[in-house]
């Protein structure tokens, strides 16, 4: 069994509510922000960012784009650079795995990632007293000085595997493995599935003419696909229009 888990995110359906971000943080034991943390030092394995067509007034158009680890299939930039195998491409699932306990925090992988989907723990994670009881037992807590990122809610994959084993099955039940962000999306904008399975709805969606991927020309074969019918978003994504010169209200 060799799956290739991936997503197709319909940007036209994304309302930018941020449910995926919070669901992700809660599922993966990401601590509440350190008071000094900013959009450049925070930890958001799934982050929704705003897009705009750069115009003002009534011509202005805005959209939102959820960004997470793209689980690059080919020449995975972060895997080859890690000096001590803390990042790994899993052949059986296509998931790019990050092992914070192996990481020495050199941050080379972060400079290598074109999607900026990797996050460094600049501070030790902190919870108010007692809140550690609300931690997900399926995910170990990271410590200061290591890099983390989306592992595609791997603890849910574990549970699915275990359930299958207990039932004497080899393959997991597709319904048992759904990442937190996918589950959380109130508009069902995120389609999750096995892109290696030609019959999987996600695979079919990924092949639609409206579908695209970010920085495809770099050739890393990301497994997070996007979808839109809006011409201006497509133009922006394909780097046909000029980009912002200043950081988004920071």
């Amino acid at each position, binding site marked *: 069994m060799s799956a290739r888990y991936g997503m197709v995110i319909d940007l*036209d*359906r994304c*309302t*930018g*509510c*941020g*449910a995926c*971000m*919070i*669901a992700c*943080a*809660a*599922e993966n034991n*990401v601590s*509440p*922000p350190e008071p000094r*943390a*900013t*959009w450049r*030092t*925070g930890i*958001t394995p799934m*982050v*929704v*960012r*705003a897009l705009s067509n750069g115009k003002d*007034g*009534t011509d*202005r*158009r805005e*959209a*939102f784009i959820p960004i997470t680890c793209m689980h690059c299939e080919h020449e995975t930039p972060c895997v080859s650079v890690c000096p001590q195998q803390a990042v790994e491409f899993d052949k059986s699932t296509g998931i790019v795995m990050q092992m914070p*306990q192996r990481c020495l925090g050199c941050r080379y992988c972060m400079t290598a990632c074109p999607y900026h989907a990797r996050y460094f723990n600049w501070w*030790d*994670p902190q*919870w*108010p*007293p*007692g809140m*550690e*009881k*609300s*931690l*997900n*037992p*399926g995910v*170990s*807590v990271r*410590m200061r000085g290591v890099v983390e990122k989306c592992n595609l809610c791997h603890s849910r994959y574990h549970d699915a595997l275990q359930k299958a084993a207990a039932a004497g099955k080899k393959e997991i039940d597709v319904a048992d493995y759904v990442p*937190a962000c996918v*589950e*959380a999306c*109130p*508009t*069902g*904008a995120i389609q999750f599935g096995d892109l290696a399975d030609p019959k999987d709805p996600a695979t079919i969606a990924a092949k639609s003419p409206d579908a695209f991927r970010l920085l495809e020309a770099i050739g890393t074969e990301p497994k997070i696909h996007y979808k*839109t019918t*809006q011409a201006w978003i497509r133009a922006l994504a394909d780097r046909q229009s000029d980009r912002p010169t200043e950081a*988004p209200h*920071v």
Partner: protein
Amino acid sequence: MKFSRRDLLIGTVGITAGIAFTPVPWKLLGDASIWTQNWPWIPQPSHGPVETKLSACALCVAGCGMRVRMAAGFPVGVSGVTTNPVTQGALCPLGFAAHQLNWHPARLLTVRHNGRASSWPEAQAAFAKTCAEGPVAVIDGRPGRAASATLEVFAAKHNGSYQAVSGPETNALVPYAAWSEVPVSALGYDLENARTIVSFGAPLLDGWGTPGRFTRLWSERAAGQINPQLRLIQIEPSLSHTAARAWRWVAVREGTQSALAAALARVLVEEHLVKTQGPLPDMTLEQAAVQAGIPITAIRDLAHAMVECAPTVVITSDSDPTVSALNVLLGAIGTPGGIVLKTKMNQQHGSVPAAPATVRATVIDGTVPWDLIPPTQGEVFRFAAWDGGGSNADWLLPSPGFLEELTDIPTAPTSSIETYTIATNLLAQPQETQTAAQFFSKLDGTLPDVDKSIHARCEQIFQAKLGTIYAGKPTPVAQFTSGAKLEAQLRNGSVWLGESPRHTTLRCALKTWPTAAAPAPVTDWTATWAPPVLPLLAAKLYQESTLRDAPGRSQA
């Protein structure tokens, strides 16, 4: 022979050499790095059996169904319930971190009197005293609960008043209630049948009503389509999240929504886009256009667009009769896809305003906006699980937090169909806390008990034989053989959904075009979030990312 400095040197060399042939350096090297992987100051998840339970979120009036993952007896994750017919598995962003709220730094676990720590007996005594002196006003932020009945009875017994505070979504329905002489709680929007929705600043895609209900509709019928089945026209000064995703966004000048509404009314009637003949506003199209800062042609187009795809319904962000009147012209009241009457079953909770002067004590319960100032001179007792800060209540009384209180959840304000849910308390209620109902019952043992009233309501539903119970699979109430079975299902997180709305029984008479100052539109995205504090993880949205602006409400 005696020991020289040279010997010491050589001896040390010998020891150093020897150490290398022992496990000491190597094991220490290994253990040191293992230590960094298990730093004592980094919390560890607890061990214990993991189970999944169903309940409902009682933090705001939406009352979404929640699937709660429990480990070692504590909630470690929440998600929506896909079998819930209303939310269809959705929750608001804040809901996903709600299970951490019980440990929020602002959690109230001690009785506070004018900022100083106090105790329950003292609070009881103080309250008993004031009760003896005069009438009591009870302000209920969550009317329609079983507990609300208890509060109402208590208020009545102490010749006081019971007042329900409602959120913007309920307020938006007030005008129709007034015009058609039915209680607000009986009204709802039949979004499922609407083809065009004109929102005057209502954050329809951003926390309006019940999460999931409209968002799912929108994503299935509108998202990304050039000519969608469901047209969402957003009329708002700024490009909000909803405006950004709407089929059309009309930028109106701040606070001129009434003017635009008036202009639209004129176009609709004068160009015979609607059957009804008025009433008409006094304002002329030109005046209105100037006020709203929108060219007349644009207003005409908008009016046409509104009726192109009927049925059309107008939704306001808060009570605004001048805009609501458009629905009368559009004939969107009592018709499919408009404002409809829910099938009525639960008894009504009227709201009798208190006589300010005479009231000696005011009790605030439920998720009442933190900045609410009760219109009385008397002592104020406020029940809250979290301290939102800056409350002017004399007494802050800690009440149960998230999933710590057994309560039922009446129909959500915007819903067009009656629903009934029970939010089972998956966590034990902390001894430090009391609900208002418990507090009152201590004074008066004869008050109706919440658990019993919930039982009674389940019985009611069973007797009426109407609607459907949504558990794993939907089961019509009529098929239930005993009320106990039905109650058990509801207590395990199932939802009762009433009959589909009646369209005929609602008549709405409007003599003249209403004139009222439009209230400030809901801009703060957390406005519909009832608890005074946000889950800490919410800061991911505005501190650790630039997705949203930090909310106006204090973060404690």
